[in-house]
């Protein structure tokens, strides 16, 4: 029935608040495993002449041998011998930090996607020209979308990401804190965020218009670093310049 489906979907969206309930376990539940091992250890320690060492090994036996623990980060799946191992694993394999803005990502692939999307002017330039540049974040998918929002939608529709998921998070509110702690990822006020975005967008716009001016000038088709260097422009590939032309013609006054 339609209403039943709706209700359960709503439940899914609701936060599962802490509710005090009594918990029961089956006698064969893994919860009781340690107690069961202890029982047998104590009952047989004399008959089997167990050493303290051995007893310790038996107590920890279950943890390591039958450990079905895997790293829960998407795409990792590394086998963890114990829970304690997870912290180490996380700091060594999942803390790829951006050298420009200190945001942290769990894989180097996601870090490089971030760097392209946020700190690479050419990425934005290509986007502006209509290339599908926004990669799907799920490894192996391979799809590329033309806009951030489009990629977002794809993640939600195809890969069941939550609608509130944001790959590019806004800046952290407490700037003092951010300066202190380099590993913190950014959250924050709309103003700070939009300021940041605006700055980057402005740079893009400047670059784009500069490029267009370039292509309309009567200078030779290739740009030499020497002559233009004092203008502080970076090299723009010919393909980009040429793609820009229709727009640049509109800009011509």
């Amino acid at each position: 029935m339609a209403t039943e489906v709706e209700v359960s979907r709503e439940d899914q969206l609701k936060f599962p608040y802490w509710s005090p309930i009594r918990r029961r376990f089956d006698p064969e539940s893994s919860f009781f495993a340690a107690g069961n091992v202890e029982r047998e250890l104590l009952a047989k320690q004399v008959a089997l002449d167990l050493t303290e060492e051995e007893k310790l090994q038996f107590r920890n036996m279950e943890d390591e041998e039958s450990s079905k623990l895997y790293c829960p980060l998407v795409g990792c799946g590394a086998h963890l011998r114990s829970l304690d191992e997870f912290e180490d694993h996380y700091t060594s394999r999942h803390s790829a930090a951006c050298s420009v803005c200190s945001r942290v990502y769990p894989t180097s692939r996601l870090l490089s996607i971030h760097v392209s999307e946020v700190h690479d002017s050419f990425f934005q330039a290509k986007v502006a020209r209509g290339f599908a540049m926004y990669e799907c974040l799920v490894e192996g998918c391979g799809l590329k979308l033309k806009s951030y929002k489009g990629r977002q939608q794809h993640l939600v529709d195809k890969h069941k990401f939550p609608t509130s998921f944001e790959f590019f998070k806004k800046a952290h509110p407490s700037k003092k804190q951010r300066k202190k702690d380099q590993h913190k990822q950014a959250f924050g006020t709309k103003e700070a965020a939009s300021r940041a975005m605006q700055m980057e967008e402005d740079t893009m716009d400047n670059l784009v218009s500069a490029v267009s001016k370039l292509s309309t000038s009567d200078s030779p088709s290739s740009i030499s670093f020497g002559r233009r260097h004092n203008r502080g422009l970076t090299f723009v590939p010919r393909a980009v310049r040429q793609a820009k032309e229709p727009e640049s013609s509109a800009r011509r006054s």
Partner: protein
Amino acid sequence: MADEITPRRDPIKSSVGNVAAQRRRQHAITVAKERREAVVRTKRLCRVGVGGGGDDQLTYDDDGDGGDMMIDAEQSILEAQTCSAVQDLQLAMLFQGKGAMQKRVAALREVRRLLSRSEFPPIEAAIKAGAIPLLVQCLSFGSPEEQLLEAAWCMTNIAAGKPEETKELLPALPLLIAHLGEKSSLPVAEQCSWAVGNVAGEGEELRNILLSQGALPSLARMMLRNKGSTVRTAAWALSNLIKGPDPKAATELIRVDGVLEAILQHLKKADEELATEVAWVVVYLSALSHVATSMLVKSDLLQILVERLGMSNSLQLLIPVLRSIGNLVAGDAHVASTVLVIGQSITDSILPALIKCLESEHRVMKKVCLLLLQHEFGLVLTRNASMQEAAWVLSNIAAGSVEHKKLVYSSEAVPLLLRLLVTAPFDIRKEVAYVVGNLCVAPSEGSGRPKLIADHLVFLVSKGCLPGFIDLVRSADIEAAKLGLQFIELVLRGMPNGSGPKLVEKADGIDAMERFQFHENEELRCMATKLVDKYFGVDYGVDDE
């Protein structure tokens, strides 16, 4: 090293020297594995006879140092000896003349010695040599007591072996069960019950066969006897027999006339060893059978268990006692509320008893840690079963009415719990988290969100419990991470004057929650995102700047 070929081998065997070396290496590996299995299996090898075992010691207090233990015996020699001993038995069975009985018993004794002195009894060899049909014959009705004892002892140890070996004993089961009867001599019945216990410990299939052959009533009646060792062995065998997963056996047991009284009597008065085995029977009764649980609850069982909890320092006893209490409390809301009536002496004494469990084991744990450091095992901490189960019981009490929560909250448990939340091994921390969280939330009425108990929350947070929860959020365990996030939500929502978010931020909570951005568990991802969006979203920190 197993690679060396020892020079003391005589020339005839030198050609098989390499093979022997390989076998020794294999043996070493198998030894470690089998030793581990021998410990964890719910079977017990019989090394000392239950009574009148000729030249053997009679007490269970045998320190097991056993000058007779053939620990280093070559397995192949042992197997050869076993084979010839079984052959001798066969000859003795055929012999009809004068002294036949003595011959039979002597042969049986030899087989029994081989099966009980070595670290790894040559069970397979014995079976291959045809021991079982002979032993079955020896169990026939009217046989002399010594013969019955020795035969049953042999079977006990055969049944302590591998599944396929235990299964070979199927033809012997009806006889073993028959000898449990009240007309049997006590030592014989006891030894047979040991054998039955080992068979039952093998698995569900054999358990069901034993039950269908009427093992239960006979074993149950053995608990009514006077002799301590008999009751102990019978109780242990019963715990193997009723452990399910089918609850039928447990229900049948509690209905046997006199069993409930016997259980209460032994739990109240017996020495710790016996009380331990009886307590394990109660564990399975309370875990599996509703009928049993309601009968147990109506009796003074809980009072007796709580007294034991308070008085005993034996880890062996504390585990089944704790677990029984836990099962009873967790079983049924009605049970819990009738049993844990505030103001009654039970609730007054259960808390101190539980606290003592958490405390004393903490000291034991500290000692063990020091031992570990000394032996350079690094900082791997052991799981301490009884602490985990004590915290579990407490969490179920704290899940009760507001009065129950107030009781726990105002007891000495809280400072201890807060310490454990930071210092204990993971499994215990998780259980403690349940207690702390349960203290802060009133039982939900209807479908609404459960109400916060603000003063409990404020106090506990002021005492520094938040970092412990945030630590759980960081773990790879889904249940723990969920608990952590749920508690963070309580803090964000319930701390007065909107102080929650700052507290969470200060404790690195935002950082911990950000891990879930790329977490594969959707529920956790959603939970973390919701919290961050709601409490650390657009307007967070605006006033600061």
